[in-house]
């Protein structure tokens, strides 16, 4: 009997080891350990054994069961693992295939420039002021020290609708309107972005419509050094910390003194290249101290208040920053152009 049990154990374990799937393994379990299995059969002969041998044989039978059970369990783990591996192998994909695209659009390059500048100045305590694209001659010119017949009106030939109404030629009328609203009380600290219009034929460097961004600060004791410091912060944030600025005297009817700001060329760092026409400097914007006539016309006491203003073209900034070579791209809205401005450095 003892031998028979040993035999059965060896036989069962051999079959377990040869099993190739979970079903076969289960069949083996039922065949050897089931109620009708050979071990139960063998144990039926226990009655013939002596009282002494009976518990020994019982223990042996249990051990054989345990051995077989253990063998089956181990094999089961092994087969299950193999099954998972096989499944995983079957599920393998080419991870280098492209992903499912997420379609997102992005800001127009000019909006990108405008928002960057807005945010920069908001950080310095400015608010964003906007105004109409169609303006009264008064706000566009007269309130800015450009009376009718002023020679500087030549500089910005305009689209008139009637004698007194025109498409604004700059965003300065927003400054005039904002000042008027302040009723002679400072401080005023605004940044004014918007579309402006001039009678130019559209070509690579001219556009009858373009985007301007102006800034205005009025308070007691605003000095030209404040303008210089503010423009320096702007230039470094927009074009890089290593930029230097240079103020050149210039003329605008609404400021006195007036300056133009150049930055050291970001392409050649001042050594001279095409972009800066070998001067090492690139003209970025016009600025100056608000003309006393402009202050007075808007109701500010020019003895008490001073201020500075600056203005620039968003297209020019974008052209310099991104190397765009034709201003018409900004208004053609070619998909292949629009899509290039999705990356945020």
């Amino acid at each position, binding site marked *: 009997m003892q031998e028979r049990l040993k035999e059965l154990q060896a036989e069962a374990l051999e079959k377990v080891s040869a099993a190739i799937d979970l079903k076969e393994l289960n069949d083996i379990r039922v065949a050897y350990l089931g109620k009708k299995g050979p071990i139960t059969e063998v144990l039926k002969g226990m009655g013939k054994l002596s009282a002494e041998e009976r518990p020994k044989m019982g223990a042996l039978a249990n051990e054989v069961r345990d051995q077989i059970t253990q063998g089956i369990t181990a094999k089961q783990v092994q087969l299950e693992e193999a099954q998972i591996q096989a499944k995983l192998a079957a599920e393998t994909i080419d991870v280098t295939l492209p992903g499912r695209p997420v379609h997102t659009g*992005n800001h127009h390059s000019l909006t990108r420039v405008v928002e960057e500048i807005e945010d920069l100045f908001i950080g310095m305590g400015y608010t964003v002021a906007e105004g109409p694209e169609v303006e009264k001659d008064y706000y566009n010119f007269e309130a800015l020290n450009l009376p009718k017949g002023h020679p500087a009106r030549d500089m910005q030939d305009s689209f008139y609708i009637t004698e007194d109404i025109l498409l604004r030629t700059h965003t300065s009328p927003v400054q005039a309107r904002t000042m008027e609203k302040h009723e002679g009380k400072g401080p005023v600290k605004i940044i004014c972005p918007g579309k402006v219009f001039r009678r130019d034929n559209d070509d690579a460097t001219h556009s009858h*419509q373009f985007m301007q961004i102006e800034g205005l600060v009025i308070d007691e004791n605003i000095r030209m050094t404040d303008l210089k410091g503010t423009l320096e912060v702007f230039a470094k944030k927009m074009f890089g910390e290593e930029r230097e600025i240079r103020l050149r005297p210039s003329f605008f009817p609404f400021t*006195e003194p007036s300056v133009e700001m150049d930055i050291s060329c970001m392409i050649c760092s001042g050594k001279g290249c095409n972009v800066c026409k070998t001067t090492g400097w690139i003209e970025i914007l016009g600025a100056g101290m608000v003309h006393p006539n402009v202050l007075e016309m808007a109701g500010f006491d020019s003895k008490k208040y001073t201020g500075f203003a600056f203005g620039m073209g968003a297209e020019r900034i974008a052209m310099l920053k991104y190397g765009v070579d034709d201003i018409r791209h900004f208004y053609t809205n070619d998909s292949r152009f629009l899509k290039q401005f999705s990356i945020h450095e």
Partner: protein
Amino acid sequence: MYVSYKWLQEYVDLSGITPEELAEKITKSGIEVEGVETLDEGIKGVVVGYVAEKEKHPSADKLNICQVDLGDGELVQIICGAPNVDKGQKVAVATVGAVLPGNFKIKKAKLRGEASNGMICSLQELGFESKLVAKDYSEGIYVFPADTELGTNALEQLHRDDQVLELGLTPNRADCQSMLGVAYEVAAILGKDVKLPQPRVETVSERAADYITVNVEAADDNPLYVAKVIKNVKIAPSPLWLQARLTAAGIRPHNNVVDITNYILLEYGQPLHAFDYDRLGSKEILVRRANQGEKITTLDDAERELTTDHLVITNGEVPVALAGVMGGANSEVGNETTTVLLESAYFTGGAIRKSSKDHGLRSEASARYEKGVDPQRVRPAAERAAQLLTQYAGGEVLEGSVEVDTLKVEPAVITITIDKINRVLGTSLLVSEAKDILERLQFTTVVEENEMTVTVPTRRGDITIEEDLVEEVGRLYGYDNLASTLPGGTASAGSLTPYQKKRRIVRQYLEGAGLYQAITYSLTSEDKAQNYSLEARDPIKLAMPMSEERSVLRLSLTPHLLEVLKYNSARQIDATAIYETGSIFLRTAENELPEEKEHLAAAITGLWELHQWQGEKKPVDFFVLKGILEGLFSKLGLLEQITFTKFEKDGLHPGRSAEVFLNETSIGFIGQVHPNVEKELDLKETYVFELSLEKLLHAEIKPLRYEAIPRYPSITRDIALVVDQTTTAQALSTVIREAGGKLLKDVHVFDLYEGDRMEEGKKSIAYSLKYFDPERTLTDEDVVKAHDKVLKALEEKTGAVLRG
């Protein structure tokens, strides 16, 4: 203004300063030097030669074989094709080995079998602009005066060994439209003196007053008129140095008399005009406004019709010049002229600007008058011209001038404190430093303690107020020397307005949803302007448009976005999705500003889902764009206030368009572009929406409050309804929501069937209803009660029956 470096040296000592260094200094102190041109740049080996022999080329009609003496007595054979080449001329010869502009190297050559050892040059070949070459030489080679020395450098003989600074003048610096003005500026920058010309004229005994009388009717426009008479002039070319100075400044030489008037214009900034006295037709000058419809033929041979806005010089009867702009052909100085009537006048800017603008005629003279000339140079300029006319035209100047003078010349006197200067500039200059700067400009400055009393010369008409002096001090002190500070005062918190913030959110959302931002023009064509407009108004027209295509203000954004789609689709871009935020313009009363409204529009066409390797492709449809729009309303907290109703509008597909309402207010539309329009634009199915951004962003929304997260399960019931084809989903869901009571938390369509298996005129639409009570777990009974109400209401109000 073009400034010859050599010429400038006559007035200011420039020793030790190169033209480039000078340009840099001028730019930094106030006038942008836009370029420095070297007139003889890239030219080598051009000498004065003598054409000793000329004979026809045996095998080329238009060529001549010339034997040219280059000064060493030997003859060099050169083939020349210029029609005016002739024996006995002194000419500019590019010798073998010479280099001409454009790196054109002269080599030994054979032309039709004959040797040619060099080239006889035209001025154009020597780098002159064609329009600046005197008429005599414009079609051929240049011929030197007979006394020119052989073998010398031809460019030096032409005074081209010079550099020209191109000044970009701002309108306030009219003073620098003259060499003397530039000299004052440069002297101030360098801290040097100005050497002024000292006109000295010898006169003959006859008196100008016996030859001419001057009357001015329009004294407001012409407060000072000075006439001089010069007899016995001999018209000839002016000296080469004088021609060279005109050419360098961009003025074409004509003859000695005309050249001298132009020379004085450049030197003093005072326009002069020379009339042929004998052709004047009278002994009188009368300055007046033109009669309406009066005509004059100007020197450019154009007949011009005049109005009473235009100031004219007449001979008492007919106009002989358009004052301050251009002379008349009837009194033009020509080869036969012997007596010259010289005009030096002060015309006001406004009068001249009007003439110049109306006739589209900008001359060197009008450019100066428009910006203002120095009233104190009118007489000296006339004297100087008279002097040169005796020197270079052999003229005899008659005694005296004939003048009409109602001009009051008073230099501006401005007082300013040093504190004011320092307060504006942010500097701490001493009064002595400021005085020194002002005196360098030759502004007479008297100091009393901290106050300066400054007398501004009349040449600087732009300096009228304290701030102008602040600028003069600042720019010559140097802006490089200013410190950098930031505005002090009370700190203010910068921010966007709620509207501006929300507009940014709208942009970000739409971009996240796959749309690109476009920016298009506010101007459009009249025939397109009213398409897709939300409000019907007549478009606002420009008074003087540059083209029909940009002649009126837009009433909607959609047509522009469709143009963009058309542009892209014509370039094989098969999917475009764009949006724009921008203003539209509604006409109001005449001479009032239009109502400007900000709109939001989008347009999409082509494939929406494009996942190439997995084979998924889906063109855009109505619900793609509507989904984007609903997402936007959701984002803005407005979805519950929005309804869509079927809508017909020109340019839209009548069955696939909806008007969008915010509560009771229409805020815009969404729809498919009408197939006819799609065809016209060569577009695939295209969907658009346009909304009033203002109505959208100004709408009131409930403040954001936290809502408890559900602690109890919800119960979902799905129903399939059979309804009339015409019953809208919105009508059904409205009934469901109203009937469902407060337990009904969510309703959405999950299926739609309109196929053959439906009864004619019917469709099946399936809804999923979610019931939920935040306070407790719902029982079946609760749900049945609510749900039955819904079904009943549906049946009663829409005739819907449950699909079996």
